[in-house]
């Protein structure tokens, strides 16, 4: 009799367990759907969490950073002499470039005055230590321990001394998530520095993202420097991004090595040029049925940023077009 009742209890418990498992699986799938449908809500919850763990990550990352710094120092000691020679040569070269840059800068100011061109947008920046390198094999993003409190805005460019590394995809009060240009969700309008050939830099979670939407007759060669094009008004034009490493003539795949090695990044500079561009969440959605943009929409958004209405109505407006419009009418 007792055995029967305990057997029944086991069956009920097993049934309850199965029901709970099924319910949790359903909730997990529901979360996946919510994540797709309401990215703003998910982002809000997610940034609250990163805000909570950012101080912990900051503390934990200090010993890790000390260990990696120690290893780096040992490695550097071994090739100190060789590096010194290289640095001397580089210094001589850079001095020459500094002279050229100063001349060009002065000339640029004069020409701008002649043409009555407005000055490029002013920048403000926040320097932040990387406290988390998240995602592993599935995503390429950084966590930094600065947020709205320090004036960080969603969509700001994230740079190091070498060049652009990504943009701010989520901002919490004291933490922010940076979507790297190598992430599978990253799309960045770029151009070849020398020829001004435009392209879209598409991340694919490899160390070398792909250049897509290149014009039919455009010629791109390995070694070409890639910079931002300024389209979409997300970033100003000319920020260094990377260098073309391979051009596959058969399938037309062009790959690029970013200037920034993400494995060596400790600090980043979050730069705000005051450009709202495609990430302006307050901008009204485009009128349905409006004329399509003149060029194929070059920018699609990361899931985190997908929440903002894609303002495709004025994506092609680059600084050049804007500057022309800003000129006074002829007398």
């Amino acid at each position, binding site marked *: 009799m007792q055995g029967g009742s305990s057997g029944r209890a086991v069956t009920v418990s097993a049934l309850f367990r199965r029901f709970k498992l099924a319910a949790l699986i359903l909730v997990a799938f529901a979360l*996946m759907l919510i994540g797709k449908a309401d990215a703003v809500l998910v982002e809000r919850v997610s940034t609250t969490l990163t805000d909570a763990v950012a101080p912990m990550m900051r503390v934990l990352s200090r010993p*890790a950073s000390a260990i990696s710094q120690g290893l780096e120092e040992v490695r550097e000691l071994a090739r100190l002499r060789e590096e010194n020679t290289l640095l001397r040569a580089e210094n001589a070269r850079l001095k020459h470039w500094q002279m050229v840059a100063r001349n060009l800068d002065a000339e640029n100011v004069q020409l701008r005055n002649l043409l009555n061109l407005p000055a490029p947008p002013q920048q403000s920046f926040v320097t932040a230590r990387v406290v988390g390198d998240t*995602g*592993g094999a*599935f995503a390429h993003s950084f966590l930094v321990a600065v947020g709205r409190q320090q004036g960080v805005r969603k969509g700001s460019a994230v740079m190091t001394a070498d060049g652009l590394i990504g943009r701010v995809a989520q901002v919490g009060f004291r933490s922010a998530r940076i979507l790297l240009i190598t992430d599978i969700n990253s799309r960045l309008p770029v151009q070849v520095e020398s020829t001004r050939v435009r392209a879209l830099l598409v991340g694919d979670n490899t160390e070398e993202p792909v250049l897509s939407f290149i014009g039919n007759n455009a010629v791109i060669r390995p070694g070409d420097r890639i910079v931002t094009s300024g389209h979409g008004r997300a970033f100003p034009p000319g920020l260094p991004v990377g260098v073309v490493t391979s051009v596959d003539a058969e399938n037309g795949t062009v790959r690029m090595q970013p200037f920034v090695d993400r494995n060596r990044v400790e600090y980043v500079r979050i730069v705000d040029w005051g450009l709202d561009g495609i990430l302006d969440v307050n901008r009204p959605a485009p009128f349905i049925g409006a004329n399509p943009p003149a060029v194929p929409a070059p920018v699609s958004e990361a899931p985190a940023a997908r929440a903002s209405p894609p303002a495709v109505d004025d994506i092609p407006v680059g600084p050049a077009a804007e500057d022309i419009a800003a000129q006074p009418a002829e007398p």
Partner: protein
Amino acid sequence: MENEGLAARLEQLTRHWVPPGLVILCMLIAVLPGIMPYWSDVAPALALIPLYYWSIYRPDLIGMTSAFLLGVLQDMLTGVPLGVNALLFVLIQAVVSGQRRFFLAKPFFVAWWGFAMVIAVALPIKYLLVAMLYGDFTPLSNLVFHMLLTAAMFPPVGWVCARTQMALLQDE
């Protein structure tokens, strides 16, 4: 007397927080930057190790609901689509705790082999789910290295779990 009761309850509460705490600590360590070169490309799913361990030895301390919540936490921390790790953690907890009798009182290598089997199924599921939600496949080579590194990390992390269990939870 009342104070002693309160202290005992507090101690018990702390002990019960140790297993999920270890999972969270592993989550945080896995996303620390610059531990070693190229770590971030293939960073192991460290949190799966304590989850697997406690699912065998103390499933009462990390149940299905706790596993689900820890998975949500992992999703938010790593920035992968919400729900993916939640699903994975629940499935691992349910399957492993269901088969725990097989692993109890078996040598360490059996537990390691079991873990390798679990991730050989679980991580490809995660890969497919992420691909489905992104609409694109991430590099397969990263997944393979991610799986190998996760399996390779089992002995040290498993050892920490075992020591923790012996130090804090054995007398329960």
